[in-house]
């Protein structure tokens, strides 16, 4: 008699335990599901910058006549990805060098060390960085200081006497440099 009762009780407890386990699993699965679904747009907002293909656009920066042979001048343009609410931060610039008759070179203004804006010292014919003393020659190669690689180039094309440069993402120096 007693044995049967114990067995019954055990069966009951087992049933209760499996019921509890089921409730736990069920509720936690629902919680996980709701969290996962909510996470999709959240993570997408977080990763938004990686989900867009960085656009590259041709921008007019001046006429051939504005740039005498041998000079290097700062040109400003609107960056590749201007949002309507970017205001002044949509602006970007590059150093444009009229190298020889038909050849223009455009350099990103960002030092390849840590991205500070390099300035062209016309008489010294050097680009100099104010942050950590990086110096580049007129062809963009490193002359002194910490920069690990030459200044980044933009593509340049001439269309009906109009100089256009192809915008690019901000040049980021990687560990391999």
């Amino acid at each position: 008699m007693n044995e049967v009762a114990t067995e019954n009780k055990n069966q009951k407890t087992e049933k209760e335990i499996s019921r509890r386990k089921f409730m736990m699993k069920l509720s936690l699965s629902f919680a996980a599901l709701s969290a996962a679904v909510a996470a999709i747009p959240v993570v997408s907002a977080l990763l938004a910058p990686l989900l867009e293909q960085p656009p590259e656009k041709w921008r007019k920066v001046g006429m051939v006549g504005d740039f005498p042979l041998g000079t290097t001048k700062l040109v400003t343009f609107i960056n590749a990805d201007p949002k309507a609410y970017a205001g002044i931060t949509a602006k970007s610039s590059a150093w444009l060098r009229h190298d020889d008759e038909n050849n223009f070179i455009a350099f990103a203004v960002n030092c390849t060390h840590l991205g500070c804006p390099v300035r062209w010292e016309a008489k010294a014919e050097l680009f100099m960085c104010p942050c950590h003393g990086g110096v580049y020659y007129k062809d963009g190669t490193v002359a002194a200081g910490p920069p690990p690689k030459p200044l980044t180039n933009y593509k340049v094309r001439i269309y009906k006497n109009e100089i256009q440069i192809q915008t690019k993402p901000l040049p980021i120096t990687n560990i391999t440099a």
Partner: protein
Amino acid sequence: MKKFFKNIWRWIDDRTGITELITPLLKHPAPPRALWSYVFGSATLFVFILQVITGIALSLLYQPSSSSAYQSLEFITNQAKFGNVLRGIHYYGASAMIILIGLHMMRTYITASYKFPREMNWISGVVLLIFTIFMGFTGQLLRWDSSGVWSSVVAAQQLGRVPFAGTWLAHLLLGGSTIGAQSLSRFYSYHVFIAPAGIFIFIGLHLYLVFRNGISEPPKAGRLVDPNTYRAWYKDYLKEKSVPFWPNAAWRDVIFSSVIIIVIILLATFLGAPALTGQPDPSVVHTSPTPDWYMVPFFALFALMPHKIESVAMMVGPLATIFLLFAIPFISNKGERSPLKRPWAMFGVLCVFVFIISLLVSGMKAPWSPDFKTKPLPLSAIKSPHPDSTIVAGVNLFYAKGCQYCHKINKYGGAAGPDLTIVGSRLSSSELTIRIVNGSNNMPAYGGILSKDELNKLVVFLASQK
């Protein structure tokens, strides 16, 4: 009337249990003879609260938008009543938090309070340190002037050194592939929501651990920490000697924190917030981005470390530092706590302290940067008493060709290269020529830049400097 309010309070207190909750926390037993050196942690907390409050006040006036944040900063600084003081408090508050959290950490290390059972106190503290530095950095970006814009580029470049994911991380930080509309929205979110949420969570944990594990007793040489017996010993110790945290131990914390906050407000009132450095226009290149002082040691390190290893060091350095900080309580969690018995540990603290301060000092001077503001060298400052036309031409070239940005002659010029005031007595004309034409490790080769005639004039001038 007084009774009426008392009754209201009694009712609220009964139904909410405020006193029940707070009293044990306030009165919890603390070791006797608490020291003045124990005040830095609580001061960090109080200054953090000041930051939260002034931050909220600033958010009432600030526009978190790439296009108009700068104008709102100008409004806060120049027009809003007490706006500049408010900005100042938030700025000096940030500075104070960084100093105080640093001192708190040093004190914890010196008295080895991170040892058993307070390892997690230390670890949560390291997380708070990282958050605090992150807040300092992002806060500087929110000023969204030209330094803010370029500092964010510098940060993106540093992230760029992370292997494989570098460019992605840089774009995540900037909110896109370039500086633009989305950059400031991100920084705002990091600074105002994400990092503060983390700080609240970890301050909660940190304080909970202080109550759970108790305030560490002032160390005594020869009294060793043994994980097997420490908890029981500490319990007995408190039973015998403890004092209630409030007010016996905490009165110092309150006084010190109040003084710090008053000093912050005085600084803000009389020195004001740091000046804005111009429009956030990424196309303006004639600007010298300078980080706020607490970032200067990092900035200096990047100039001073050997260039060859830099790309790797920029990534490995911070990771190794963070790893080491987390590892400290695992490296030694028992034994001696007294600084007198841990000479190497004290030597280490001293080294770190000297290292950071030297980087800060040299970063403030930034001798590696070209001195773009140097004035042309006057003839009265050169050695030659009656310079001929060649020397005069040399003097002019010395300025025009940028030599003077990096070299000093008689106090005129930068400090990146050697002082050339008496270079003529060190180097012969032919040695000067070789150096100028070929350059060196840290000097451009001027061979392709100077004409023969210009080179000659420069050399004649420099040779006369003896």
